[in-house]
């Protein structure tokens, strides 16, 4: 260093200072790396991340009330929901005005569906009232309070207005509260009635079952991968076919196969009865419950565990274990102290794959899970495709995503993500 200061900066071959030249080369390498990543990153960002984020944003978005009933929302601000009295005529007039516009644009029933998630009966109230309110002229037909209450009792119910007021905010926490078995009320967040609490239970069950499935995959995949990795290539490649065949077979076919196997008149029960191990009237109940889901999903996800484990174990030199044994280690010590630690990256990669895939499955649990084997994704799918409550579905999805990320982070802290090897 002192030399360099004495005779000026150290120079590279082309005469530029070395420091600068190195920095330039580093910058160029960074740029090249980024250039390699950029196409894919852009592609994934554009086609996946942005749409998904905007989809998940629906979990808080709630503009519909204020957009459909702009004047009413303003009037509602002046009404004290705790007063125990119905709002005054001004609000009813504003509401009629809003509704006439909304009916013209056919958005009032949409609002009714939205509010029906919060209070049962809103849907038909908006639809039925719409036909009558359409005939009113907001300028000349006042006063409206009694007329509206005549059209539908609901407009004379304080609860109706309280619900509208509660959900008139453009950004709501309502869906997230729903997603954890709570609800947004005029008095703040409250627990759902007990007979409607299910989602937290489903979250817990999904996590628990995914863990069990991951564990049983590890248990089954480890010996098989070890065998495949230690056998001569020509034998192991043939055995590999047995692993790849299920992998190639459609998920739907495999799930149906388990149904054929596990049901009460299924192959396993029939065989056991034929062998006399199980009485005909005491057939095993191994489907439409958690057991069925675990078995079927373990089977479906097992190749995702075996393949990474196998490729890691293949790289473990057999000479290490031989060396350990020649130095007097017992079989168990050799395995536990020498072989197992080297195979951990494979377990890690397989576990991440299996766990994440398991947590998001819903077709298999739907078919073999019965009532106690369904996952939270089944509810997400229901709210997306049946009840159209996309806000709740997005909230559930966001929570699920957060849980996965949290677990991923914990895993990184405990095992270290660089310690993961796949393929």
């Amino acid at each position, binding site marked *: 260093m002192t030399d360099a200061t004495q005779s000026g900066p150290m120079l590279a071959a082309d005469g530029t200072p070395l420091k600068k030249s190195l920095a330039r080369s580093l910058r160029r390498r*960074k740029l*090249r*790396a980024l250039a*390699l*990543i950029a*196409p*894919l*990153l852009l592609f994934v960002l554009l*086609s*996946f991340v*942005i*749409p*998904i984020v*905007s*989809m*998940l944003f629906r979990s808080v978005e709630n503009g519909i009330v204020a957009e459909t009933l702009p004047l009413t929302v303003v009037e509602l601000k002046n009404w004290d929901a705790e007063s125990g009295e119905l709002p005054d005529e001004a609000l009813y007039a504003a509401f009629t005005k809003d509704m006439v516009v909304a009916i013209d644009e056919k958005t009032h029933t949409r609002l009714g569906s939205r509010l029906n998630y919060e209070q049962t009966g809103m849907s038909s109230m908006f639809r039925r009232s719409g036909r009558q309110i359409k005939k009113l002229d907001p300028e000349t037909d006042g006063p409206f309070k009694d007329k509206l209450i005549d059209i539908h009792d609901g407009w004379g119910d304080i609860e109706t207005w309280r619900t509208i007021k509660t959900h008139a905010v453009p950004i709501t926490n309502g869906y997230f509260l729903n997603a954890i078995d709570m609800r947004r009320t005029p008095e703040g967040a409250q627990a759902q009635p007990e007979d409607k609490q299910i989602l937290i239970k489903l979250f817990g069950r999904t996590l628990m079952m995914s863990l069990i499935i991951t564990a049983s995959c590890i248990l*089954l995949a480890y*010996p*098989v991968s070890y*065998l495949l990795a230690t056998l001569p290539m*020509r034998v192991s*490649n043939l055995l590999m076919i*047995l692993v790849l*065949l*299920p*992998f*190639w*077979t*459609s*998920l*739907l*076919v495999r799930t*149906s*196969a388990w149904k*054929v*196997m596990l049901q009460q008149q299924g*192959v396993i029960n029939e065989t056991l009865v034929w*062998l*006399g*191990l199980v009485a005909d009237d005491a057939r095993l109940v191994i489907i439409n419950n958690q057991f069925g889901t675990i078995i079927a999903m373990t089977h479906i996800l097992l190749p*995702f565990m075996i*393949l990474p484990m196998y*490729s890691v174990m293949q790289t473990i030199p057999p000479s290490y274990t031989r060396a350990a044994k020649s130095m007097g280690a017992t*079989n168990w010590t050799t395995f536990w102290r020498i072989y197992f630690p080297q195979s951990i990256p494979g377990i890690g*990669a397989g576990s991440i794959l299996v766990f994440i895939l398991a947590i*998001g499955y*819903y077709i298999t649990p739907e078919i073999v899970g019965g009532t106690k084997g369904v996952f939270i*994704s089944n509810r*997400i799918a229901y709210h*997306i*495709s049946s009840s159209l409550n*996309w806000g709740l579905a*997005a909230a559930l*999805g966001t929570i699920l*995503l957060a849980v*996965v990320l949290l677990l991923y982070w914990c895993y990184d802290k405990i095992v270290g993500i660089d310690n*993961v*090897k*796949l*393929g």
Partner: protein
Amino acid sequence: MAALTPISRKPMSVVLPAVAIAGGFLGMFVGAGQGSVLLGIVIGAALMAGLAWVYVNVLDNERMARWITILGLGALGLLFAGVTGLIVGLLAGWFFAFFIFWLYEGRYRQKLLPYMTGQQVFWHYAFRVICGAIFVFLITPILVVLPLSFNAQDFFTFTPEMLRLDPEGYSLKHYRDFFTNNEWQRSFKNSLIIAPIATIISVSLGTLAAIGLSQSHVPGKRAIMGILISPMIVPLIISATGMFFFYSDIGRFLEGTLGMDKNFVGYVKVILAHAVLGIPFVIITVTATLVGFDQSLTRASANMGAGPVRTFFKIQMPLILPGVISGGLFAFITSFDEVVVVLFVGSASQKTLPWQMFTGLREQISPTILAVATILVVISIALLTTVELLRRRSERLRGLSPA
């Protein structure tokens, strides 16, 4: 293969108990079927031990002993449980004939290292039995449903006719349905178009990005990695809905502004959507193989005058190929077996095989989907076997001894 270890005959004190245990195990099942488990165990153990004693001490002719056991147990099976019993009996007979002499002659040590202790030998075989059981678990469900594709009825049920092996119970009509039904043919063709192209896209882009990611000094590496892996983490149904919006816009642009064919655009949409879903698998596998990659190799190559492209194809690619292949395999399966996203992003003319299967399962349970599965299984066995045979051939040609 030459014997590693000299073998010697084992004393009866080893053979008889082992055979008796196995015999008792079989006897247990037969006994359970006939009413008394205990009696079954005792008779089974005694019968098998007796047979072993007679074969070793009196008969001493392996061929004859084998046929006696197979036919004898087959006859017993027929007596107890008809045709199915006959098959089980023949198989059991074959096993016991083999087992007795395998133990007696000490053949079980033949292929093992000479210095292994008895315990190690036992564990060696126990381990294989465990692995065998796991392989059975993996493969049985598939083998069990495949015969149902020959069912004469339209259900996933083993009919009495099928169990009696009556030809009446079998038919090829589901295969006929697959080959003659337009819907099945079209969806099969669509899958064969969409899955490989999606795989190629995700493998090529994914590999490039993985190489970029594996360089040192990439800013925001963790965040980039997270973004690239995200398609695997988001629940599929949400991905499907979200992606619909993006691809709908893209579709409108391609059709409206660029005037492309509607059908073609439909394929582009599904292919790109599937490619995104496959990317995480490629990224994970390829970055993992690159972790152990020796960067001095690329420098050496550059030193010798190779350009970056040449270095990539001649040096890096061959070394990371296993990772790329398994990533590609995952990506292919992701597309080939994907039903949720295609339901949203695709339209009728892009109906893929899983979509058709899904409708089939929902609207009419028809064993045609099993016929398809059977065909795919046969094709993949053929493919995998060919690959393996080619590998062995090239090994032989290159003069390598089998590993």
